[in-house]
């Protein structure tokens, strides 16, 4: 397998076509469709960020809402208090998240907290931080933090104030960058190290890999990427509440797409986000016809179960096979 066929021609064409279609989408799509697409891309982006840690390096984090929240609050609070441009806020958020990630990583990996225990450690940190933010007045505590709304008609990219279309292109760019970044990571030394650790940590260790360092790199990269998603949420929503941004629900939502799509694969998070959103929307429509609230969620649970039962590896490996895109392994 050479670099050239890491992405076979057919797949490259497919991807470029997809990208072109997405880039042209605002011309055709209405605001509703656009907001759905933003949801999809945001979920795909966050899923890819989580995938670095879990899918590539095999470290199960159930508390990624922590990094979403830190990124959102760092960017949001700096902007709300000092008018700091989001790009600077993004940097701050990435640093804070990376630090938080390395604290959790150091503690978890050094003390050999593994598997489910590690996952619960990450939840504990996220919940801990949620309660902390609930009481931190500078960021509005539980009353929430509000970003000033601009009334200018023009999009202001540098301050991330503007129309849905602008936000759409921002998240499209972020998702595309995350995809390319993930691909680059997988094709590099660290990517191979991660996969080795994911498959068998002891064997990886015996091959001279600095396992601790590799895992730390995964956590830090994943946390920083996730925090950027948080920043997007902050500026897109304009208001932040610890209760929702740090919630376990968000952590779960964030990884659901990736697991459904195909954990550890490059395209899985994207496919999973599309599939889940489509499922959600379809169920909303069906639910509206049945006319009982809650049917949607039940059907959602059932669908999830069915996918897990029949495609535990996710949809993408299966679909890739059906589409005969198996040229590269991923």
């Amino acid at each position, binding site marked *: 397998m050479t670099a050239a066929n890491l992405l076979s021609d057919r797949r490259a064409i497919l991807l470029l076509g997809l990208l072109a279609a997405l880039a042209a989408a605002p011309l055709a799509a209405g605001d509703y469709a656009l907001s759905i697409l933003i949801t999809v891309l945001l979920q795909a982006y966050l899923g890819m960020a989580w995938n670095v840690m879990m899918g590539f390096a095999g470290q199960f984090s159930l508390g990624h809402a922590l990094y979403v929240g830190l990124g959102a609050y760092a960017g949001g609070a700096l902007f709300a208090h000092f008018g700091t441009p989001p790009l600077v806020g993004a940097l701050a958020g990435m640093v804070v998240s990376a630090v938080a990630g390395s604290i959790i990583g150091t503690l978890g990996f050094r003390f050999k907290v593994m598997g489910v*225990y590690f996952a619960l450690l990450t939840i504990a940190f996220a919940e*801990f931080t949620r309660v902390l933010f609930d009481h931190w007045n500078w960021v509005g505590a539980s009353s929430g933090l509000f970003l000033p709304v601009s009334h200018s008609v023009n999009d202001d990219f540098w301050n991330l104030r503007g129309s849905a279309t602008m936000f759409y292109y921002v998240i499209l760019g972020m998702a595309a960058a995350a995809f390319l970044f993930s691909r680059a990571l997988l094709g590099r030394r660290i990517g191979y190290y991660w996969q080795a650790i994911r498959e068998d940590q002891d064997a990886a260790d015996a091959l001279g890999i600095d396992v601790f360092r590799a895992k730390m790199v995964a956590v830090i990269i994943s946390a920083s990427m996730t925090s950027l998603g948080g920043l997007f949420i902050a500026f897109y929503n304009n208001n932040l509440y610890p209760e929702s941004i740090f919630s376990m629900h968000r952590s779960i939502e964030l990884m659901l797409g990736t697991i459904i799509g195909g954990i550890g694969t490059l395209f899985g998070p994207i496919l999973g986000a599309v599939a889940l959103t489509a499922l959600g929307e379809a169920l909303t429509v069906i639910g509206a016809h049945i006319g009982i*609230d*809650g049917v949607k969620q039940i059907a959602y*649970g059932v669908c999830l*179960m069915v996918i*897990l*039962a029949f495609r535990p590896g996710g949809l993408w490996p299966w679909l890739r096979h059906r589409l005969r895109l198996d040229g590269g392994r991923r």
Partner: protein
Amino acid sequence: MDATFFMNVISAGLLTGLVYGLMALGLSVIFGVMRVVNFAHGDMMVVAMYATYLLYTKLGLQPLAALPLVAGALFVFGYVLQRVLINRFLGVTEHIQFLLLLSVAIIITNVVLMVFGPDARNIQLDASFESYSLGPLVLDKVRVIAAVGAGCVAALLWAFFRYTTTGTAIRACADNPVGARVVGLDVEKLYAVTFGVGSACVGAAGCLLLLLVDVHPHLSSDYTLLGFIIVILGGLGSLGGALLGGVLVGLSEALSGVLIAPSLKTMFSFGLLILVLLLRPQGILGKKP
């Protein structure tokens, strides 16, 4: 704040902690034997609470009288769930198991929501407003009842594992599933019984907890998390550990609520969890993995 005040607070924390412990017992039993982390734990408890509520409002059955019924029903539920669904997923990776039980949780929560609506329900016993006064100590009557009930159920569970053949077989299964299979134990059935017993514990806990708190469908995830904190504190798979963890969380909530700020008390539970995970990852009474 005087000594009596602290004694009151501590005793309330202890009593609530025992019920928490019972709830966590179910989680601990299931993990200890099958290595399955039951993320639908809180949801099962909410179902038990609603069942108790129905038995009380429709048939006038007191929660303590309803307890065997509810526990029995949950046993059957757990048994069937394990047989039909979870058994297929025993060997798979953790995150798939997690998602599977999550989807079970989503379904349960929303079925409950559809059937009972989102309102909080509670039952009103005469005892609900009464309390025992032991000198300066004021003990909430239902809290005492619930704690004693939890203690009894825990003792029963211990006796089950200690003195019955099935209980011993399950313990053998937990220690060495391959060996258990070799000596001819029906491991699948034992797993189902285990899941049933774990669920029955949750059922009993739900019954007793309804004396103390109001039930609504969205209570479940809080209790799932709380259950995890408790079993990890005590040690996953350790029965005594679950009770100890429950009491610890009850106490830490009580004391941090008094000494610092009540709204920060969950943070202390999580803080305690982080501390224990780092200092003793297997939990206070847990065995080394």
